[in-house]
Structure formats: C-alpha cells, structure tokens
C-alpha cells in the first residue's frame, strides 16, 4: 500500500536522518548549522504529512527562521578553533556509541515487549478538519493556564537575556539625536562680556 503520502514520508525521513547525521559529523560548524536547517525543514514536512499543519509551519517560522539565526550568530561568535573542537572526538566515540546503542536497545525493548495498545485509535478527522483551528481551540480553553505560564517563562527569558548580556560601556562615541535636537544656543556658546580695558 505504497501511496504518494508514504513515498513522501519516507523521502523526507531519509533526508531528515541524513541531515541529522551530517549535523553531528560535519567538520565546519556553519555547515552543521545549515544541515540542521535542512533537518528542521524535513521534520516540518513530516509534521505536515501527519496533518499537524500548524506545527509544521511554526517549525519553519520559529526554528528555521529565528532559532537558526541565533545558532549561526553563536557559532560565529564563539571563535571556534576547529582543530581543538575535534580533539578527543575519537576517544569519546566508543562511550558515546555505547550510550547511543543502549538507548536504541531500550527503545527496542519497550517497543517490542509492550506495545502501547491500551489506547484506542484516534477518532477519524472530520472532512472539514482544520489543525490550526483544533489546536487554537484547546489552547485557549483547556490549556489556558499553561498558556499564561508560557508568557511568564518568555518574560523570564527576556529579563535573563538582557540582564546577562547587556552591559553599558562608557565612552562610546555614539550620536544621541534627542540631545542634539534639544540643545540650545546657551548650552554651547557662553558669551562673556569682556570690557575692553580702559588703558
């Protein structure tokens, strides 16, 4: 039963896995970031195929559009020494692979020994199914409380980002337009009444 949706699913999955692998093994961190963009993009396509239209688009909008820009900034900002970054890669590799293998093994055990069969299949989507509408409806009714907590978390993130990175530096030569406009003649020119000496 290989219809076009399945073909697309496998195509995007292969691209996703390939891109994710390249993120890890790419030598140049900028390339790795760009592969991450590709990975996010493929994941967005898979979300779309699953019917999660809104999530797919948000993934592109927020992750590809904003988070990756931040990643690129950070990668460039860090002044990474590529040679040093790769140091110890081989010595950590066996440990990393062992942990990854353990994770895969655990997942496989979970999957094969205890299929999650208690849950009934989701109800069929109605013909006029609209993912964004469905999501919006629960978000602003049932999930109203977590939604407001999310606002608090975003506020904390704003405060933390500014408090941790913003530092006023003294002595920068910047132009302050408002002060230039507000300036008056008496601030700049001091007229001294100098009488010529009588003699």
């Amino acid at each position, binding site marked *: 039963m290989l*219809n076009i949706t399945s073909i697309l699913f496998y195509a995007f999955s292969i691209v996703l896995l390939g891109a994710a692998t390249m993120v890890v093994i790419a030598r140049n961190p900028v390339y790795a970031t760009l592969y991450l963009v590709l990975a996010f993009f493929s994941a967005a396509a898979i979300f779309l195929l699953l019917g999660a239209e809104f999530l797919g688009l948000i993934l592109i909008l927020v992750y590809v559009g904003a988070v990756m820009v931040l990643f690129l*900034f950070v990668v460039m900002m860090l002044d990474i020494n590529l040679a040093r970054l790769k140091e110890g890669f081989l010595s950590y590799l066996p440990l990393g692979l062992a942990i990854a293998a353990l994770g895969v093994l655990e997942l496989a055990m979970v999957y094969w020994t205890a299929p999650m069969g208690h849950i009934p299949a989701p109800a069929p989507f109605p*013909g006029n199914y609209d993912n964004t*509408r469905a999501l919006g409806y629960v978000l*602003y009714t049932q999930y109203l409380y977590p939604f407001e907590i999310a606002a608090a978390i975003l506020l904390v993130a704003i405060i933390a980002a500014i408090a941790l990175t913003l530092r006023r530096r003294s002595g920068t030569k910047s132009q302050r337009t408002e002060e230039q406009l507000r300036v008056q003649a008496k601030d700049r020119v001091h007229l001294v009444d100098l009488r010529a000496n009588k003699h």
Partner: protein
Amino acid sequence: MTGADRWSDETLLQPAWRGVVRMLTHYLPVLIFLFIALLVGVVPLLLGAALGPSKPDSEKLSPYECGFEAFEDARMKFDVRYYLVAILFILFDLEIAFLFPWAVVFDQIGLVGFVAMLIFLGILVIGFIYEWKKGALEWE
C-alpha cells in the same frame, strides 16, 4: 475531476486520513516548487562538475588575500550584542506564533479567550518596556 481529487485516492486511504489528505492537497504546489528548486539548484552544479575542465594545482587551491599569504582565520569574535538582538527576536517571534491559532478560532473562544490573549500580551509588553528602558534596543 480536478487533480486534487484524483490525488486523494480514497480507496487507498483509511477514512481517518481523508481530512488530512484534503489539507495536504493545498500544499501540492509547494511540493512541486520544492522539486523544481532542487533541480535548478543541483543540476547546474552536476553539469559543471561533469563537463568543465578541472586541473587543480597547489597555487590554484591556496587561499588568496591581496597577493599576501592569509594573515589569520576568517573567523573572528562577534559582539555579544548580536546575540541579544537575535534572542529578543526569537522571543517575540514566539509570541506572534501564538497569535495565529488565536485569530483562527477567535469566533469560538469568546471573551475568555480574548482576555487570555490580553493577559499574555500584557505580560510580554512588560518585558518589552523593560527591554526598551534598559536600552537593549539601542546600538551605541
């Protein structure tokens, strides 16, 4: 019979997925676009590699900088202020993301949903005032 209808071959699909497939057909042009973009991007590269002459030597491959040897790595430290701008952009980008589903279901969620979004925006406006007053938006 339109192309979209032919694509969602309903004998092949479980009924649960019909709504999704109908949604997906709207994205068919995007898929075609992606495919063509891929072709346009990749084919010239492949053609160039296959047809063009390639005789590299050490001089041709060495980096060139105004007739001198390269002085230093092209990579250098960026000012942390770029990072601040980027992270503030992400935060407000996320805020906007919440507005889309809200606008779509605005007719169903009533006053409660409206007030919920007002509070959400209010909290973030406080963050914005903080950001503004602290001078995080200024580039001195």
